[in-house]
């Protein structure tokens, strides 16, 4: 297997991981709405995942850049920019005092990310197959 195939194999697994993180986020948010969890615990739990998630996605994007996968990089760049902006503005973490007011925004954001990771999962899978076929 060549470099490209390995890269996409890795990214397929990575995007599956990110996908599950987002599912976890959404489940937690709906738990909050149903009052199964209090906002303080929710924020403490989710905030542990915020930076790893962004960093992992960032790492993946940089990897595409280094490997010269321009199209894949461009697809991922907006989300990377979004994450960087949030980190700079210091509003990437969930705030327990404001969570109920911003819950709908957070949910929407998580759903969009979920969709993005889902699409990229299949896209990477496709690219993986294409790369494998091209090698043979």
């Amino acid at each position, binding site marked *: 297997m060549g470099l490209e195939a390995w890269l996409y194999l890795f990214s397929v697994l990575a995007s599956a991981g990110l996908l599950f993180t987002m599912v976890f986020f959404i489940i937690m948010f709906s738990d909050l709405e149903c009052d199964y969890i209090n906002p*303080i615990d929710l924020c403490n739990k989710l905030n542990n995942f915020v930076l790893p998630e962004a960093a992992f996605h960032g790492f993946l994007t940089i990897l595409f850049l280094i490997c010269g996968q321009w199209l894949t990089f461009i697809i991922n760049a907006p989300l990377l920019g979004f994450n960087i902006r949030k980190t700079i503005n210091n509003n990437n973490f969930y705030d327990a005092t404001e969570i109920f007011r911003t819950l709908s925004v957070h949910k929407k954001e998580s759903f969009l990310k979920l969709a993005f990771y889902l699409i990229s999962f299949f896209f990477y899978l496709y690219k993986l197959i294409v790369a494998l076929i091209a090698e043979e």
Partner: protein
Amino acid sequence: MSNNLPPGWSAHIDPSTGQEYYVNSLTQQSQWELPTVQNTQKQRRHLTHQQAQKYYSSQPADVPQQPTQLFTPGIGQQQPMQAQQPIQNLTNDFQQFSLSHPQQQRQSANSINLIGQVPDPNALENDPPMISLPPNATFSQSPTANAHHSFKRSTLNVIPTTQSLLNKFKIPLSLVITPYRSVSSTEEQIPVISDSVISRCRRCRTYINPYVTFLEGGTRWKCSICNLSNEVPQMFDWDPITNQPADRFKRAELNHSVVEFVAPSEYMVRPPQPPVYAFLIDVSYTSVQSGMVATVARTILETLDRIPNEDGRTKVCLIAVDHALHFFNLPPGSTDPNMLVVGDLDDPFLPTPNDLLVNLSEARGAIENLLTNLSDMFQTASGPESAMGTALKAAVQLISPFGGKIMVMTGQLPNVGQGALKNREDLKILGTPKESTLLQAAGGGFYKNLAIDCSRSQISVDMFLFGHPYQDVATLQCLPKYTSGQTYFYPGFNASRTEDALKLAHELSTVLSSPIALEAVMRVRATRGVRMSEYHGNFFVRSTDLLAMPTVPIDQSYCCEITIEENLNVPFVVFQTAVLHTTCYGERRIRVITLSLPTSSNPSEIYASADEQAIATLLANKAVERSQSAKLEDARDAVVNKLVDILGQYKSIMTSGGGASAQLMIPENLKNLPLLMLGLLKNVGIRQSSHIPSDLRAYAQCLLTTLPTQSLIPYLYPTLYSLHNMPMEAGTINEQGLVMPPKLNLTIEKFERHGLYLIEDGQHIFLWIGRDAVPQLVLDVFNLPSLQDLRPGKMTLPVLENPMSERLNAIVNKVRESRRGPYRPHLYLVREDGDPSLRSWALSLLVEDRFEMGLSYTQWLSTLRDKINTGSYN
């Protein structure tokens, strides 16, 4: 005809016309129309309201002002009602018999044109529009079956049946709740139900209230909120004291909308906690020098007897803070406090496991001794550092097993240890879009996280801030905000001025001695289809509909926005607020406040029911929140746009005039809304200006979000009295209490050069003296020979033995006492030809005039009208 008059009324013949008129001996009111039961009902409410306000407003009974009526859309619908009048008169008797609410004819909106009208300041504190429930809403005829507006009021007293209808009006639907407003001894006390028979709906957990219906011969009741049929508890008709059957319809919870249940042990997570007070006193150099420490210590010492401690369980602790934490070991029985110093600011620990948090009664001697000597102890030793952040952490650690109240007194920015803050004030960015960053919390989330920890351990924090020149009120107020405390700010405090010391002593001792409700949670329930969507105020939202309040302070108000999720097919909607709390004498109680409002799909009725004061309270809250999350300018724009939307929609729905119009139409009951909004835009918290220090702004914003409506309205539109030419009876006492001079419009046009005026907004009182004041007036009031001897600034009004001085003192005292809450406003003397900064401060309160970039009232109205004309409201 005069035989069947309601009680209190008598008929008289007018000698000039020979016509019969009616006088009510209770309210001193006279009228030409035959008084009916409807009127007396109204009267009774009016009477309780008068009692409630006896000490702050003695304005003459409202004379109904006939507005210039231009177009009345509802008039067409009124006609058939009048045709039914005789039948209605007949049925009136039956209605009484069937225990129903007599009022059923609803108001329709009267349009008036605002342009060219002079606002009436006396109308600002009018009662909200009557709530006219359908006749069968409640079986109880009690006048207290619906909550008084000082406890709970709604922006609309008629609820639209659908959300799309509500959206059309653009009037935000919201409740303004003051669950713990102070009840003076002259008012009717809140009934307490102590027999622990608490009947609640099985499904929605609503408490039984005057709006339920009894089914199956009274063995079941139907919930007024979810319509579920519930069993009536066995002991419901039983009087446990006399051990005899009792009349269920005499039970307080079926007659009063505001009641308190004594809760049995199922409502407790742990045994009722004792009241705990932790005092964190900053003893850094500036605070000791300003006399803050001495004043605070003396005030606490003098208030020790009034701190709620009926059962001797109250616990206190005291930590003095400078560059280190000074704990005090107060062994019971001893009189010698023992000081323990902790210098480790990164990881504070408690120097000894016991005797730091002590029982007030047992360790009284040591506490008294400590408070007496506190100021002297730190007279020389301290520097300019304050480790207040660390001290807060230590205090939370100390009292977290119990919960309670932390009272922080600091005159120094916390600048060492955890949560250290920097001076962020930057004069260059005041008045620019960046200004709002100064109003947001700094400190890297330390104070917000601490607030969350506090809320978890049932601790609330009160901040008494004295810092000069910079205290970072915006950051420190985070703690009170999320722990339902309160922030108090005394800029430039100096105890050598008696006025400063008096104000602090009064406010601190009032806060300390007021009965507090501990470990409380508040929940608002409403009829199915109505959902609480957003909450504003000082608390932590623990779940979608549960507000956590470690302590419930007296006279703090909360807003709760409402959305209508399903079409409402019911004739009326019930809103029930329940506050589960522990009283300071160890009883678990539930305070239940029920408000019932009719529904309608008739726009005219809905407009006629809008409550301008509640709308102003909500919009003030929202404007402050907006200014903290976005820019101050956005907050102001949001207020303007909201008002334009409301008026524009009114124009398009209710008036026939399409296209541009020279008039500005508004429902009569909202006629002061533009004035109040102008006041809000000119308030220190929101106003466009590059001269307002961010501390003052942040503090004004705290007030805007916490003051109950009664105090907020004058804070938005201050009261102006003319004193040199007040009527003879003003300042004297008659049977209704002290007579106040008439209120004047807030404009410089009302000022005469030889006059003496009083402007007050509940937080400050300004005594304005004109440049040509007669020496006799100066002598009578201030005991000084001429105007030139008067020194502008904070002052105490001398009590002299002449009628003018006595009346003036009476008026000033009444102004101070009139409003609920602990505040004791400063009295400032302003000379028209004196100190320009003080003069311009006083002028900034004249809402109807142009000030800096603020518009005058007439300009404001025409701006509104132009915006409506150019908008798409036709």
